[in-house]
């Protein structure tokens, strides 16, 4: 655990190895489009994981992101289809609401000294519950802007990507900048390293913590917007359990759940690992539902163990 610098590299190498082996076994896997599909299909997860990275780096956790994502799809669908708002205004409002929702939880966590797990768990129930209050049915979105975002294919390297994938990558760039080149980002690391010390060193701990959750809420709402580009619908059952995927992506990307160690960019490798595992399974196409689970578990296991062993080895060699 002493070498957080190393883990993302290991992850990347393992990822390439996994794709290489997959390509050898399943023809067609190593096509440009399949790789780009990883980005297209996981754009929303990447955005979620980015927000989650900040929360985890600060030593917290946010279980509400999957539900906030669903709520964001639901609210945008409702605003567009029922209230007939212009799409940009709807998106703006949804992003704002997401940030407020997250910030509200952050404020509860900080000012009332509540545990992040429990507050965001309640937030998770609340956001999903609010979806059902809007409608228990799914609402189809037929707004032209959304349709365009959904169907535009931007050519790249002989394949194509969706605008959402680019937005997610842009968000990643922004997040890396935030984490490494702004006082806010460094404050997040400091708080994750030792909150008491951060306070003693005069960091604005309260503001940073609230902002971290607000940022995560914002990311979840943005992921919701991307998700509704992807699915063209708002639905209370969207993205169930995605919070766990986001956490797993962040942790696999080399960030310590106890806070303070890791890189935001690791989220990308984590998301790609999860995506690759799914792609491998889809390409295999012979697994029953239960074998699918077992194989996902096994691949995760192999991946984590190899990653860990290599990190231990590297630490030994460095010593």
């Amino acid at each position, binding site marked *: 655990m002493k070498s957080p610098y190393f883990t993302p590299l290991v992850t990347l190498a393992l990822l390439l190895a996994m794709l290489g082996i997959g390509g050898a076994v399943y023809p067609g896997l190593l096509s440009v489009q399949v790789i780009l599909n990883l980005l297209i299909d996981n754009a929303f997860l990447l955005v979620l994981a980015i927000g989650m990275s900040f929360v985890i780096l600060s030593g917290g956790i946010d279980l509400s992101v999957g539900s906030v994502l669903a709520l964001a799809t639901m609210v945008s669908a409702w605003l567009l289809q029922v209230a007939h708002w212009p799409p940009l205004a709807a998106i703006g409002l949804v992003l704002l609401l997401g940030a407020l929702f997250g910030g509200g939880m952050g404020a509860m966590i900080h000012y009332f000294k509540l545990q992040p797990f429990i507050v965001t768990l309640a937030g998770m*129930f609340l956001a999903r*519950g609010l979806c*059902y209050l809007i409608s*228990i049915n799914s609402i189809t979105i037929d707004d032209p802007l959304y349709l365009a975002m959904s169907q535009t294919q931007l050519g790249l390297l002989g394949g194509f990507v969706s605008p959402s994938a680019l937005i997610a990558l842009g968000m990643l760039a922004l997040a890396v900048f935030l984490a490494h080149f702004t006082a806010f980002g460094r404050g997040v690391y400091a708080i994750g390293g030792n909150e008491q010390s951060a306070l003693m060193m005069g960091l604005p701990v309260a503001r940073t913590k609230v902002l971290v959750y607000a940022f995560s809420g914002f990311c979840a709402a943005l992921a919701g917007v991307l998700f509704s580009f992807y699915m063209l619908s708002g639905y209370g059952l969207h993205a169930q359990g995605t919070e766990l995927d986001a956490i797993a992506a962040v942790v696999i990307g080399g960030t310590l759940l106890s806070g303070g160690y890791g890189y935001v960019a690791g989220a990308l490798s984590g998301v790609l690992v999860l995506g690759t595992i799914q792609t491998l399974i889809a390409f295999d196409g012979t697994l029953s539902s*239960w074998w699918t689970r077992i194989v996902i578990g096994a691949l995760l296991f192999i991946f984590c163990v190899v990653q860990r062993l290599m990190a*231990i080895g590297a630490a030994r060699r460095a010593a």
Partner: protein
Amino acid sequence: MTAAPAQAASKDKPAPAPAWLLRHPLLRPLAALAVLLLIDLLAIPGFFHLSIKDGHLYGSLVDIVNRAAPLMLAALGMTLVIATRGIDISVGAVVALSGTVAAMLIGGAAQAQTPLGWAMAAAMGAALLCGLWNGVLVASLGLQPIVATLILMVAGRGLAQLLTDGQIVTVYHEPFFFLGGGHVAGLPFSLTVVAVVFAVIALMMRKTALGLFIQAVGINPVAARLAGLKTASLIVFVYVFCAACAGLAGLMISSNIKSADANNAGLLLELDAILAVTLGGTSLAGGKFSLVGSVIGALIIQTLTYTIYALGVPPEVNMVVKSVVVFLVCLSQSAQFKHLFSRARSA
């Protein structure tokens, strides 16, 4: 730093002065439970009504404790894991796995294919193996607990389904139903099981140094190792214990519904268990823990669920109600919030 006094220490405190009582860490979870029950008393006619049916107690309260039994077990196991700064999200999968193993071995006939005892032992064995697996991944390989247990969370349910080919296995062997549906002295047998598990672990806390060691490892693992604790074995132990509790809960659940449903049994039970532990006042940052608190936490959750059903809340509002109550319970436990409130009142 206002943590619960250690189990052993609380025994020897001086006579319970009211001030001490008011500061007792279990006061707030208990108060939350009492308020929920009060709401039930006022809003649901006959809520506290108990009658004797077929020689055993029958009523809402019995239902609540009976339903809460698996959750209480899972929460007890989870408490120790959390005390070591870990987390176990594979609880639900272990529940599914143990129930399935037992049901498969007993088989779908009135006569058990495998003797009941063996079947249950095999199921518990499977659960213990799961715990060992988790513990070794965390303690020896140093994987982060959440990923280490994520592996089993995904794969465990798959294994259970593999055993049953995705079918629900219905059990017709009567004696099996006793664990989850039987009665002893008019009370649900499941309650006895929980009481025994609780007594055993509480006794271990009192008679051995386990509690001290677990707390030490949870608060400062480096210092604990330097003081000569077997940190790795302790960590393996808590995961094994947690899985054992989950395994027992799995048997209880499948015995209660007389079948094993690999896909749905114990779904999201880990979240409820963690919620129960935190509601009971144990911090997820590890260290001080309260077993009684976790049991109370489980009762709060089950009472809440039951209240939602009994009040006739429309299902689409369930989640909102649940979240609001959880928020309120949390806030009621926050000293800072009380401070704010009393300031607002005095102003």
